[in-house]
């Protein structure tokens, strides 16, 4: 039986290839994601290991809670520098040095900021104790000493063309300063830490420029020869004040890597979701392929049964065939995935994210998951067809039956419409109520399940519609073929439905988001100009706001900062705003309480978050900052229109500065003095902040345009990722058509014999393909639009206040689907038109 199954596999190589590809794409996506993130973690691991290899113990503030590294930069409350002396006096300590880190943006000789996409730009002190620098070493020149000297990383030096002795200007949180470059540092083999730019100073200079005079972020300790790190850590811990902890260097490196792992985890999850969509589509393709194969082989199976094969053997035979395909596509997917990960890594280094050279990390987990997913998806998808095969009666071997598709049962039909109606109603209700994320997902899945059931009915209905065409008859024949095997047509179309549902839902959500942003800007904004960091910059130095306040042509200046914190135990972003002039630059849409009540010790809460927490104006909430600790704050007001500044919780700037060390503004909102023209104002402010080339000056229209562009960009990326699923669906259509053509050889021959031209035969196959594509596209776009509307309504809290259906985009998708149908039919149609008339008529 095994040999029989495997031989079946090799009969048609094209079919095998198409079937393999359907699963391989998804598996490659999964394994590529794993390999990429594992490799990055491994790279970080090696890098941190190298950097901290000379450090045995690290002393820093106890984190009040696990803060999200992406919103806080992993910063902790700085310590008084006296702790360095305390630690140095502990027996067994060979060396102890304080260290600080913060924002430092290096400018090149032309005054342009050196800002790698996404990677941080930071400044720190260079250790005097060489052993504690670990893998970081001065490649050229010497370590900096004194207030006018700095070193930079080799990648930055290379990019900007810096040489030792050059003058280098750096922008800090509180202003800019020029230094003499005395050295260039490297990190083992690599030129930078994951593409980040580094400006290194001696400790007093670093403390001063980073705004941490008399403070250190941590103390790095080297143990004397023969002293155990853990023992030393315990001894040091005894001498430390409350709220300060000591960990081993190894532990510190692990913690750092863990936070990277957490940050990558989100990225990994998102990619895996896309992979999941591709796999779901792939499983439909497999299911359908096996259905067709079993239908075509009924006589063969019946013959096997007649000569004594048991049902179990038939079932096993089909499953073994599926499992072989699954294993091979799993292995292929793994290979492709590894290749993909390597390619993406090279791509990242091309765009400036320098990942340390390390071999691709292929965890046993990746291999197991790839093979298991390939095997699982294929086998599960083949279970039903295998069961059908096992039920073939031996008598069928003797009867002359053309494999005709079965219609769907009445029960399936009724149940299907019920499920569909339930799902659709639930979607409508979700869209009506709003804020029902999980219900929306559940309703969408239910509706899809309904579509699976009623798919054959829809296929027949569509076939009936298209079958009315009389002239030429190609439409009619195509429609009849779709109608004849409505289950097969529906299953093929459903693969496309999945892809287009997600694509359409994303398009609707994105369009809604864009319009909501426009609405938020036009409805909530009152400022004339908004200053933002350029590109992926970390923020704007606070000295820029001071500079603006000093000008006569500027009326109100409000700085906006945000930081990761917890409110009543929930992790969130807290926004800090200047209270003076706040009402002049933005309309927050205060619902209860008064904006003017915002003062130290008080907080503004968005009305949806207030509902979530169950608090009203006058209640208190507990706000915990990673640096500043926990505070009870009085809810002064609730507001509705925070989406413009992406704010859910707002505290006054004095409170924010007490709890967050960073002085970087996320944005500055300002109004011009009366009577100043908008264009003039923009030009004047741009000139005024020329010293800070990392700042962009935007009018509200600029903000709207940029926000819309960034939504479009994101939409583009997401759609591109989803295209993979669509590609798999196309493979499914090609596969179904190829199999149909194969089984209809005699019909095609007859058609040719009675005068059907090759072009007409091609037209029949092509139209069949178009009909299936249309079925998939129309259902997918309809479901996706409904799901998108419900989703947009569910994301009202995230600032989607308007629901927009991008009709043109959706119509374009429909057109593309038809085109896809035509393309998918190219091969099968060609094959159909090449049918040998005589052979097909005389065979059998």
């Amino acid at each position, binding site marked *: 039986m095994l040999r029989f199954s495997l031989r079946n596999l090799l009969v048609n190589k094209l079919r095998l290839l198409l079937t393999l590809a359907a699963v391989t794409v998804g598996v490659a996506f999964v394994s590529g994601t794993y390999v990429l993130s594992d490799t990055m973690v491994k790279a970080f691991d090696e890098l941190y290991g190298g950097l901290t290899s000379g450090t045995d113990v690290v002393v820093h503030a106890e984190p009040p809670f696990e803060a999200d590294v992406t919103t806080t930069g992993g910063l902790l409350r700085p310590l008084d520098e006296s702790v360095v002396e305390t630690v140095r006096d502990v027996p067994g300590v060979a060396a102890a040095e304080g260290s600080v880190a913060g924002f430092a943006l290096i400018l090149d000789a032309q005054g342009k900021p050196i800002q790698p996409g996404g990677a941080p730009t930071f400044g720190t002190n260079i250790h005097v104790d060489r052993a504690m620098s670990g893998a970081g070493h001065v490649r050229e020149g010497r370590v900096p000493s004194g207030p006018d000297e700095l070193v930079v990383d080799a990648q930055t030096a290379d990019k900007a063309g810096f040489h030792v002795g050059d003058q280098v200007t750096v922008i800090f949180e509180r202003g800019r300063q020029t230094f003499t470059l005395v050295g260039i540092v490297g990190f083992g083999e690599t030129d930078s830490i994951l593409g980040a730019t580094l400006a290194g100073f001696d400790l007093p200079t670093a403390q001063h420029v980073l705004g941490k005079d008399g403070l250190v972020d941590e103390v790095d300790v080297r143990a004397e020869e023969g002293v155990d790190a853990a023992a030393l850590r315990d001894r040091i811990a005894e001498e430390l004040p409350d709220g300060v902890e000591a960990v081993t260097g190894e532990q510190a490196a692990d913690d750092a890597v863990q936070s990277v792992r957490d940050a990558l985890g989100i990225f990994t999850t998102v990619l895996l979701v896309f992979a999941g969509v591709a796999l779901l589509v792939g499983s439909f393709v497999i299911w359908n392929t096996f259905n067709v194969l079993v239908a075509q082989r009924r006589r063969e199976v019946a013959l096997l049964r007649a000569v004594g094969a048991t049902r179990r053997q038939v079932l096993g035979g089909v499953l073994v065939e599926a499992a072989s395909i699954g294993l091979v596509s799993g292995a292929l997917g793994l290979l492709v995935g590894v290749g993909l990960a390597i390619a993406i890594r090279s791509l990242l280094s091309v765009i400036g994210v320098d990942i340390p050279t390390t071999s691709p990390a292929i965890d046993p987990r990746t291999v197991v998951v790839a093979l298991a997913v390939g095997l699982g998806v294929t086998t599960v998808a083949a279970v039903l067809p295998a069961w059908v095969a096992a039920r073939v009666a031996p008598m069928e071997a003797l009867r002359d039956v*053309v494999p*005709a598709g079965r219609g769907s049962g009445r029960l399936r039909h009724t149940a299907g419409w019920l499920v569909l109606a339930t799902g659709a109603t639930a979607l409508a209700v979700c869209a009506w109520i709003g804020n029902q994320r999980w219900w929306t997902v559940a309703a969408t899945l239910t509706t899809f399940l309904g579509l699976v059931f009623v798919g054959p009915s829809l296929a027949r209905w569509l076939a009936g519609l298209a079958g009315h065409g*009389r*002239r*030429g*008859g190609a439409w*009619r*024949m195509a429609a*009849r*073929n779709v*109608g*004849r095997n409505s289950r097969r047509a529906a299953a093929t179309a459903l693969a496309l439905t999945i892809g287009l549902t997600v694509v359409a839902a994303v398009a609707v959500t994105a369009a809604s988001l864009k319009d909501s942003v426009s609405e938020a800007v036009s409805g909530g904004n009152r400022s004339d100009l908004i200053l933002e960091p350029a590109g992926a910059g970390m923020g704007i130095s606070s000295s820029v706001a001071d500079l603006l306040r000093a000008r006569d042509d500027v009326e109100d200046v409000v700085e906006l900062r945000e930081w990761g914190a917890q409110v009543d135990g929930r992790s969130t972003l807290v926004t800090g705003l200047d209270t003076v002039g706040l009402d002049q630059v933005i309309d927050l849409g205060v619902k209860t309480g008064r904006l003017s009540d915002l003062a130290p010790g008080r907080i503004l809460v968005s009305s949806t978050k207030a509902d979530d927490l169950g608090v009203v104006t006058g209640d208190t909430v507990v706000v915990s900052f990673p640096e500043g600790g926990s505070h009870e704050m009085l809810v002064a007001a609730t507001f509705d229109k925070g989406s413009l500044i992406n704010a859910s919780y707002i505290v006054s700037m004095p409170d924010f500065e007490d709890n967050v060390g960073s002085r970087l503004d996320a944005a500055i909102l300002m109004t011009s003095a009366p009577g100043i023209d908008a264009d003039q104002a923009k030009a004047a402010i741009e000139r005024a902040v020329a010293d800070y080339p990392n700042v962009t000056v935007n009018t509200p229209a600029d903000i709207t345009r940029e926000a819309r562009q960034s939504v479009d960009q994101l939409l583009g990326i997401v759609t591109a990722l989803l295209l993979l699923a669509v590609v798999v669906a196309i493979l499914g259509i090609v596969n179904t058509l190829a199999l149909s053509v194969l089984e209809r050889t*005699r*019909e095609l021959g*007859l*058609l*040719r*014999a*009675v*005068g*059907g*031209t*090759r072009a*007409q035969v091609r037209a029949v196959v092509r139209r069949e393909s178009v009909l299936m594509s249309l079925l998939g596209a129309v259902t997918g776009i309809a479901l996706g639009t409904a799901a998108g509307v419900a989703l947009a309504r569910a994301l009202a809290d995230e600032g989607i206040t308007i629901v927009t259906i991008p009709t043109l985009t959706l119509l374009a998708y429909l057109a593309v689907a038809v085109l896809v149908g035509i393309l998918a039919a190219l091969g099968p149609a060609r094959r159909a038109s090449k049918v040998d*008339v*005589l052979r097909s*008529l*005389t065979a059998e």
Partner: protein
Amino acid sequence: MTTSRLQSPGTTLDASAVTSAARAVHAHKVYGEGDTSVVALDDLSLDLPAGEFTAIMGPSGSGKSTLMHCLAGLDTLTAGTVSVGDTDLASLTDRERTLLRRDRLGFVFQSFNLLPTLTAEENITLPADLAGRAPDPAWLATVVAKLDLGERLSHRPSELSGGQQQRVAVARALVNRPEVVFADEPTGALDTKSGTELLRFLRSVVDELGQTVVMVTHDPGAAAYADRVVFLVDGAIVEELTAPTRERVLEVMGRLGE
């Protein structure tokens, strides 16, 4: 008056003497190459007069099917010419031959004559549909009535008996008023009663509608319905019989050592 004579190979029929619906002149057909080549048609010449019912007989491998396929433009000759009316098939492209089959010829095969997804009526009008024109309603009605299919037009092939299916195929073959109808063992898959019925229909199509029918068969009873029977052996015509009866056909077959 009936005659039976041996026709010497290479005899050319005088083309101008009769109105021929189709003809083969010095037809050669060789399958394969070199040592493995098989001669299917050996310098065969045949004229099919319009309005006649011709049966082609011969043992298996005699080339009767090949002859019919070549006459019908389904296959091509190695040498010689076949023509339908004034059209030399050899000069036609694949597409032109397809259109010729569609517009000027009709076909009835032994089995699997109908597309299972189309109704009887749709199958009948298929050649017209493929040509993108409506069939002549009066002619269609005549054909349908002649073949007694009026009740069955909306049925799918799977809902028809074998005999009915073959009658639908005959109606399909006639719908474009073809110059020649080719029938390849049309009764081969039918029981005796349906077979007889079908042959009567074919006969009446010739007698009453003036159609030209060429039928390949190995059944002497079927051949007896024809105006003329042509016997093939090894790709050449060895005997011809006009106004045949079953007995005379059997006699010739016996003589030819079958």
